[in-house]
């Protein structure tokens, strides 16, 4: 069923949404850790009916020649065709790439993972942290759920054992945790008509005019922004959206 855009805007103006929430209200979120034994760290985030997993694999490799004293970080996202009739197999869609890159930037720019800490032997061997997001069920707001899932998976990560510069998978994981220094939380604020709201369902997501993803850290500083959607935003709107995002980030951080 496609819900009429005007109906969504009218209701939102009266403080109503199709599922009974307020404009400024997130669905219930649940964070679970260590959901797969195959990864070095993992998580499952359930946001209403939206379910995403994140898993961390640690690899050792030669550092890039221009950064011999730094390890690597990469975030990937797969919008599995299992999770929505609208997702297809094949190369990543634009939306999958955007989800991965926005979450990646939040983690990278906040220095949540200190890449200088990931050096095994300077100039020779470093850790690469690879985080993969996969969607199980898309009931809207994949991006915000993914950002929480990635942080949870990183927090859950323990380093594998190195034997002569190669990972010894048989030995299992060590007790050494991957240090996570910040908790950058991405919150996307959506605009439909003149209304601002958060945490859309599938129906709402299809009808929006614009969105702004704001990633913020504990002290309220911002570490990444991403504007999406076909309509522009006024500076006043951006001001309001950032305040809304920071408020929700504070509360989501408590769920980690």
């Amino acid at each position, binding site marked *: 069923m496609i819900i009429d855009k005007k109906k969504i805007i009218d209701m939102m103006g009266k403080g109503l949404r199709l599922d009974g929430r307020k404009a400024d209200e997130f669905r219930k979120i649940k964070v679970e850790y260590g959901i797969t034994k195959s990864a070095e760290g993992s998580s499952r985030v359930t946001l209403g009916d939206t379910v995403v997993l994140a*898993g961390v*694999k640690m690899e050792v490799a030669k550092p890039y020649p221009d950064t011999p004293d730094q390890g690597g970080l990469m975030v990937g996202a*797969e919008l599995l*065709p*299992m999770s929505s*009739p609208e997702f297809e*197999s094949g190369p990543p869609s634009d939306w999958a790439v955007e989800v991965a890159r926005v979450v990646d930037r939040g983690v990278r720019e906040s220095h949540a993972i200190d890449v200088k800490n990931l050096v095994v032997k300077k100039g020779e061997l470093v850790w690469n942290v*690879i985080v*993969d997001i996969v969607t199980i069920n898309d009931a809207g707001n994949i991006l915000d759920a993914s950002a929480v899932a990635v942080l949870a998976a990183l927090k859950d990560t323990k380093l594998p054992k190195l034997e002569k510069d190669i990972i010894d998978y048989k030995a299992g994981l060590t007790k050494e945790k991957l240090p996570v220094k910040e908790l950058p939380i991405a919150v996307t604020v959506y605009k439909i008509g003149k209304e601002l709201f958060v945490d859309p369902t599938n129906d709402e997501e299809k009808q929006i005019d614009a969105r702004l993803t704001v990633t913020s850290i504990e002290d309220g500083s911002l570490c990444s922004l991403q504007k999406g959607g076909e309509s522009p935003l006024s500076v006043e709107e951006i001001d309001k959206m950032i305040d809304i995002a920071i408020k929700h980030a504070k509360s989501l951080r408590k769920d980690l």
Partner: protein
Amino acid sequence: MSYKKRVDGRKFDETRPVEAEVGVVKRADGSARFKIGQTEAWAAVYGPRELVPRFMQNPQKGILRVHYNMMPFSGHGNRVRPGGNRRSKELGMVIRDSLLPVINLNDFPNAVVDVFIEFPQTDAGTRCAAVTCAAMALADAGLLMSDMVSAIAVGRVDDKIVADLNYDEEAFECDAGVTDIPVAIIPSTGEVSLLQMDGITTKKQLFEALELAKDVSKKLYEVQKSALKKKYKVSEA
């Protein structure tokens, strides 16, 4: 030399602990989760729905497509590169062929039923877990089926025939080596709808292994049925 004790202490004909549930992916038309030891399969069914490109359509009946995929962090060891490979293509095909005998798509010409199978974690036996899981998801989707399909990997480790090999057992080093035989059984007829084998075996050992697969599949069939009954609240009376 003889294989006296299994690497994880199980009896030779014993599977790892199993868990099953259906209706786990809300947006899908049918779905299931099946876990055997640390091998965990999720299956989601979409369809019957329109098939594009149109040249793939069959005007006589609907077609079944099975997509097998390991999540990037689900491998035993290194990260699995996303996007599939030769192995996942082949497995999608043999899994589809194992399910086709029990599914009737005659009422859906030109349509497709897609089955997506995903693994958050693996420890050998994935194609059999996929078949067992996909059969439940197809039933959950309400498609017309003449039976279930229940699958298990059996095999030979040194001189013993065993059920449900895990990764360490597949890699067990012994004089006579290890043979892996994934088998899917249609419970009501005992027919075999998936059969592959890697390794050396005598004909006698193969038939011993098939007998074992039949026995184990009966137990899996009960697990599948009770998962489906649980969702649809059919009392056991």
